[in-house]
């Protein structure tokens, strides 16, 4: 894999680099951005915001609710205890367990969505620089078609580019 990237000390310079790459015709999906903190207040850091995570949490909660109901009601009927004429399935008290499993389902669904959509666990890609952890912002392009234009766009902001 070939890649060109620049490391930027401020978000403003990183934003300029991203704008430069766009102006050079690099498609949005091919621009790699890495930082050691979220940069939501900058345009380049606010991409990929849309997520189905809240809906998945609702789905997970619904599955948890159904599991809680089935666990309590089905098993109470399968292993009935002597209740002296009182109901075998006690939904009032079962609601506590159903509630806990509903919330657990929502939490698990959120975590699973996070892991899948953020591709965790995964291997570190080649286009990564440990200096990101020093606070620098990495802007790069993998397998660029127009190497000179990409270099120019990145150099315009930082004065130096690195190649892999």
């Amino acid at each position, binding site marked *: 894999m070939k890649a060109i990237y620049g490391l930027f000390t*401020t*978000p*403003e310079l990183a934003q300029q680099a991203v704008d430069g790459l766009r102006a050079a015709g690099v498609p949005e999906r091919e621009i790699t*951005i*890495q*930082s*050691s*903190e*979220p*940069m*939501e*207040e900058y345009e*380049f*850091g*606010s*991409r*990929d915001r849309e*997520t189905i*995570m*809240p809906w998945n*949490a609702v789905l997970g909660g619904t599955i948890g609710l159904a599991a809680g109901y089935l*666990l*309590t009601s089905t*098993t*109470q009927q*399968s*292993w009935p*205890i002597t209740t002296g004429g009182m109901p075998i399935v*006690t939904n009032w*008290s*079962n609601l*506590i*367990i159903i*509630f*806990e*499993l509903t*919330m*657990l389902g*929502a*939490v698990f669904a*959120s*975590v699973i*969505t*996070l892991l899948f*959509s*953020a*591709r*965790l*666990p*995964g*291997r*570190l*890609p080649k286009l*990564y620089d*440990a200096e*990101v*952890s*020093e*606070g*620098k912002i990495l802007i790069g392009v993998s397998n660029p078609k127009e190497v000179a234009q990409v270099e120019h766009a990145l150099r315009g902001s930082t004065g130096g580019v690195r190649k892999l």
Partner: protein
Amino acid sequence: MTRKTDNSLTTDLLRPVLETSTKFYVTVAVLALIVATGFSTWFYQIYWGMGVTGDNWPVYWGLHETNFVFWIGISHAGTLISAILRIVNATWRRPVTRCAEVITAFALMIGAMFPLIHLGRPWLAWWLIPYPSERMLWPNYRSPLVWDFFAINTYLLSSLLFLALPAIPDFALIRDRTTGWRNWFYGKLSMGWQGTPKQWHRLESAMHIMALAIIPIAISVHTIVSFDFSMAVVPMWHSTIFGPYFVVGAIFSGIAALIIVMAVIRKTLHLEKYLQPIHFQNLGKLMLAMSLLWGYFVFNERLVTWYGNTPHEMAALWSTQMGRYSPMFWTMIFCNFILPFPLLTIRKLRSITTAVIASCGVVIGMWLERFLIIVPSLSYKGTPYSWGTYMPRWPELVIFGSSFAAMALLYLLFSKFIPIISIWEMKVGEHPQIKVAAKVQEAEAAGDLV
């Protein structure tokens, strides 16, 4: 406006992880010895049976159950407070959240040990787990102890995830700054985290959803712990206010524990720059509000009992007001209400030291409160024939003391492997826009803005 990277922040917060002093090893050794003593005492109790404890007819719930309720209450410090502050986007929360979440995880683990210890035969604890059994045994879902099993495990799992997920970017930070085994170890923990905008957004979305889910879970946990008592027709237990009363008490003791822990790590890990007086002041205000609420619930509980005027309930009530348990009751009132009130309200008295003094008082007072809820009521059940007394014996006291050492040991080991303050969240707080908002909030807190 430009923003320079603050590397000193990362270096400061990573220092406790990357540098180890002799003091650390000595402290770990001492705490481990105390914990080992606690475990040995537990084995002694298992070998000789529950007869070695003070639990006896009619008081079968003594110190072990008191400690269970106490530690579950302490666990409310963390995840609940952290979740609330995260949802309302309180900027001052950043250095506090992880310190708090760690308390939840470990206090829950320690708290959940006590029913096992109290069980006498802990190897039968798995009977609480629902599984198809050829013995035709099945957990009785009408039992509050089974509710405890589900509630505590849900809260523990959610809290561990709530603690672990925002630690991933910090693991990546350590991975990139270390070599050798640390690089390998933190590389595995960071799971290939790169810090792309997508990863940041997903992490923040997950934290937000989990914060929303964890608040009702936390409330339910302590309500369900209160059901262990209020579902029984025992004097002063069979009360509808027990749910909120327990939740308020739990948050109250939780905040106190958090203030003490923060003061200790501030001093020992040299985090004075990050855990500032404003954090103690804000938590002190929350604790004051909880003190007032708690005071109201104590009054309410006693008023209803007094108004009902049933003989056995009055016997339990008077034993705490003027009888055998009155020294503990009035110490509790002093510690939970009289001591914190001036220390947290009078501006001239407000400082980190006074917040810690008030918190120590609250922790002692809340432990006494748990004891006073359990023991006097069991001492005066139903008819005078079944009235009795309880005195803890040494195994219970040793196990009780070692639980505090266990908490300190687990916290110490955690802070050795994971930055106790979330580095990336602190960095977000350094962003220019957020800095301005934080300054406005600090000025409001200090009363400089009208």
